[in-house]
């Protein structure tokens, strides 16, 4: 499952979340985002220990700006509300999984 983030729940779901959460920053007009989103969805089913979230950069510009999004798709991994890693662009599922796991290991 992937939670939709808006300015109403950003604090609760991301900043105050204890543990890991990863956000997919996307927009409807972005072709690579469309390729990435089913992969992200599948990963959310496989990596239950992490919370998966997505944020539409058109609707939530301020959050996107605050997170210094310069290109989409961007994925940011947070631990206890603090960014610990950021991945850019579409990648195969296994590659993304590995990157997430490596980032978690580095920050254990």
């Amino acid at each position, binding site marked *: 499952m992937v939670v939709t983030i808006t300015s109403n729940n950003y604090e609760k779901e991301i900043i105050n979340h204890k543990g890991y959460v990863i956000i997919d920053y996307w927009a409807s*007009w*972005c*072709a*690579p985002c*469309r*390729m990435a989103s089913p992969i992200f969805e599948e990963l959310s089913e496989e990596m239950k220990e992490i919370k998966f979230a997505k944020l539409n*950069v*058109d609707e939530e510009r301020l959050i*996107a*700006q605050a997170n*210094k*999004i*310069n*290109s*989409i798709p*961007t994925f940011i991994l947070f631990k206890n509300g603090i960014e610990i890693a950021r991945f*850019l*662009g579409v990648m195969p599922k296994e590659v993304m999984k590995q990157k997430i796991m490596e980032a978690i290991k580095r920050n254990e």
Partner: protein
Amino acid sequence: MNKEYDCLIIGAGPAGLSAGIYAARYSLKTIIAGIPLQSIITHAWKVENYPGFKEISGMDLINKFVEHVKHFEVPIIEEQIVNVEKKENHFLATTSTNKKIKARTIILATGSTSRKLNIANEDDFIGKGVSYCATCDAMFFKDKIVAVVGGSDSAVMTSMLLAQKSKKVYIIYRRDKLRAKPMMVNKVMKNNKIEVIYNAEVKKLIGDDFLKGIELSNGRKLSVEGLFVEIGHVPNTIIAKSLRVKTSEHGFIIVDENMRTNVKGVYAAGDICGSKNKLRQVITAASEGAIAARSVYEDKENEVV
């Protein structure tokens, strides 16, 4: 893998997908390998010159092509082709997940990729300030200072797009005169947000994590958070070269008027082939894909392949 196709189309942009439609109509056993959403047309925010559609985004247009191909039940395998071997009377292609595809003929429709600056740290700043697609990334540079590299129509168009939202736009060009159409150059000159810096190239990218500035060949340093590279495209000819398909001095595949290359059983269509100044658009790519499919059909009928 035992199945042998009449035709493997490599590339799923307008050229490859159109070739797929025509090949299906010629009852050729056809398969397409490539990722439609990676077609460069997805960089086009709005396409206003493809007949039948007054206005459509590049992404929606390519999805329409895919729908059409699926209607004719031509399989699309959404993977890269990493290798093609020429056997005695067929070709053997390998996909990125090591699937094998056997085919009597190949249509190369792999398009082109944005040319990079080729300077240190460029890759580290991709998505962190450096961009090759203004349509994709311009919105993230609202109220920021940005630069565009290049002097062509597309560089000038990019600078106009950016000037709508950004605080200031530099155009950095290595010559002393922009080569875009005069009408567009006039617009640039009248836009007080745009400043053109001539006779200069980007030498260095500055910043820790995100881009903060650039250094030019004339020594000048600019504070910019975004750098849009618009210096043309390079044809994707790795596979063509491995098959000894001839390319021109500008790197494009050389084809005859029916899209045949110098290698028997290998055809090409779209942005990847033809002369340097050929019109490179969706309509020409689609048309060449159609012609290539007919050539495959004719060569099969005449037992040339």
